[in-house]
């Protein structure tokens, strides 16, 4: 049985990875998960300089989901490249670094610094973080700046580049087509959906940042729809994510057209979710007579 996939040049032994920001730098989960069972690890959004992040509260639970507004807290690309990557590289699992910034130059700077760092197998451009005032989201909602960032990153790195798309746009397919045209090697979708929760007793928003990004099972149908539509329009491989808790959830994304899947919020609920999903996909393939995972990708379109 073959579960290996090629995500725009990133070779993964199975289609399961972690969603950026939900798995830290991977090592935090080592007591619970055999990290070597993962197809890849996508680590926390990394910016040129360290970032302190947003004032708390940074999360609030919602029906079958949660809002977060962490604000890209991270130690900066120097520490990621110099201190964290050497430890992660020992695992022998492809590491994809999510990169973010306030300007096009910021993205290029982080991408250039990570080029050639052992263990880094690819970059995921975060043009869709809803929780920082400057940068992130405006790149994700304006196709022209998204194209600019994609081109800038591609021009300074030899690594495969995945562009992570925001669902908070009117024309997701148009955005996907634009960044594909600009040279992206793969697309990941979806980032979180923008939301607000009000504390009725205190009569004010719960989150320090007021708005936050919604994730968890509540967003899954929106995410599956995004994968479904983009798969029909764009030929790039897709990394699907949004509320995946179980292998069956992951299979929905694959059947809708995702080559690989990322598990995010589920890690908080079940720290072994990723490995259980790897095993569940294998069981499904065995029980349903599939010998290669590629047979399942987009299969629902051909039903």
């Amino acid at each position, binding site marked *: 049985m073959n579960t290996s996939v090629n995500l725009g040049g990133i070779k993964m032994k199975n289609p399961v990875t972690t969603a950026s920001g939900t*798995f830290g730098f991977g090592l935090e989960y080592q007591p619970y998960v055999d990290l070597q069972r993962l197809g890849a690890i996508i680590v926390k959004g990394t910016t040129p300089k360290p970032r*302190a992040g947003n004032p708390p509260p940074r999360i609030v639970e919602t029906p*079958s989901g949660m809002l*977060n507004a962490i604000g890209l807290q991270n130690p900066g690309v120097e520490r990621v490249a110099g201190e964290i990557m050497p430890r992660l590289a020992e695992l022998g699992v492809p590491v994809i670094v999510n990169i973010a910034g306030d300007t096009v130059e910021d993205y290029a700077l982080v991408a250039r610094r990570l080029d050639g760092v052992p263990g880094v197998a690819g970059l995921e451009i975060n043009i869709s973080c809803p929780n920082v005032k400057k940068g992130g989201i405006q790149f994700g909602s304006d196709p022209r700046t998204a194209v600019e960032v994609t081109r800038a990153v591609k021009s300074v790195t030899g690594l495969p580049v995945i562009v992570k798309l925001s669902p908070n746009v009117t024309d997701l397919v148009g955005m996907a087509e634009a960044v594909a045209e600009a040279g992206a090697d793969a697309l990941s979708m979806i980032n979180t959906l923008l939301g607000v929760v009000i504390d009725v007793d205190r009569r004010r928003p719960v989150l320090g940042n007021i708005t936050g990004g919604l994730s968890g099972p509540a967003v899954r149908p929106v995410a599956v729809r995004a994968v479904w539509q983009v798969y029909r329009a764009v030929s790039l491989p897709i990394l699907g994510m949004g509320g995946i808790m179980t292998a069956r959830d992951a299979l929905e994304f694959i059947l809708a057209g995702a080559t690989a899947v990322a598990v995010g919020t589920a890690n908080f609920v079940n720290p072994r979710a990723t490995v259980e999903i790897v095993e569940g996909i294998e069981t499904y393939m065995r029980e349903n007579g599939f010998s290669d995972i590629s047979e399942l990708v987009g299969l629902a379109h051909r039903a």
Partner: protein
Amino acid sequence: MSQLVQAEITGHAEPVPGVSRIEFYAPGLARAAGPGQFVHVRCGEGSDPLLRRPISIHAVDRQAGTVKIMFQVVGKGTAWLARQKKGLLDVMGPLGRGFTTGQTRRNCVVVGGGIGAAPLYFLLQELAREGCARQVKVLLGARNAGRLLIKEETERLGFAVRVATDDGSAGHGGPVTELLSEELQANPGFIYACGPVPMLRAVCGMLESAGVPGEVSVEERMACGVGACLACACRVREAAGGENYRRTCVDGPVFAAEEVVW
């Protein structure tokens, strides 16, 4: 080392209305746990409520292999948990950095407000085990006599307990910090505190004025519990100067009193 276990519930009580105490069997966790650490408990099988709830460890019996948690029902997660009288609990732990104990901490005062008394009982178990119950003063605050927690069992461990209630129905009438203010006159060597934010803020201010070191256990909304998601940020003063956020789940929940920015 922290572990993820399906732990059998071995006991359940409601010491005061709206507060539950659950005992479960988890010998590895009981052995590894230290006072001030917490467990991350799944509250339901479906996706609503979705996230685990971080709950401080209230007591351990290493010989019996059992752990107790005590918590106030504040939402649907804790409400679900309070209904569990038997069966298995999905528990991760022990997690976080707890209280530091030892020789230099013996002449100390332990201050608890409301449900904040829960983790302090585990600390008192350890202090009693270290043989310093007679040197330690315990101050417990509550809204009224009927909501006082851990008083009798703390006295059974050999500690002298002073009580404060908001309505004066037991002990001193007024906030527990007024008792602490008296105790600080006697130059204690160290203070341990857990309770609501206004109480902890006041305690930290008093310790700063008195020049007495201490540790406080804080609470913050948490998702992963293992230091990955950066949700549970606590603002602290850095030794090198300036302020920064630290993770309540792995850098806390116990912080040095002088570190926390309220």
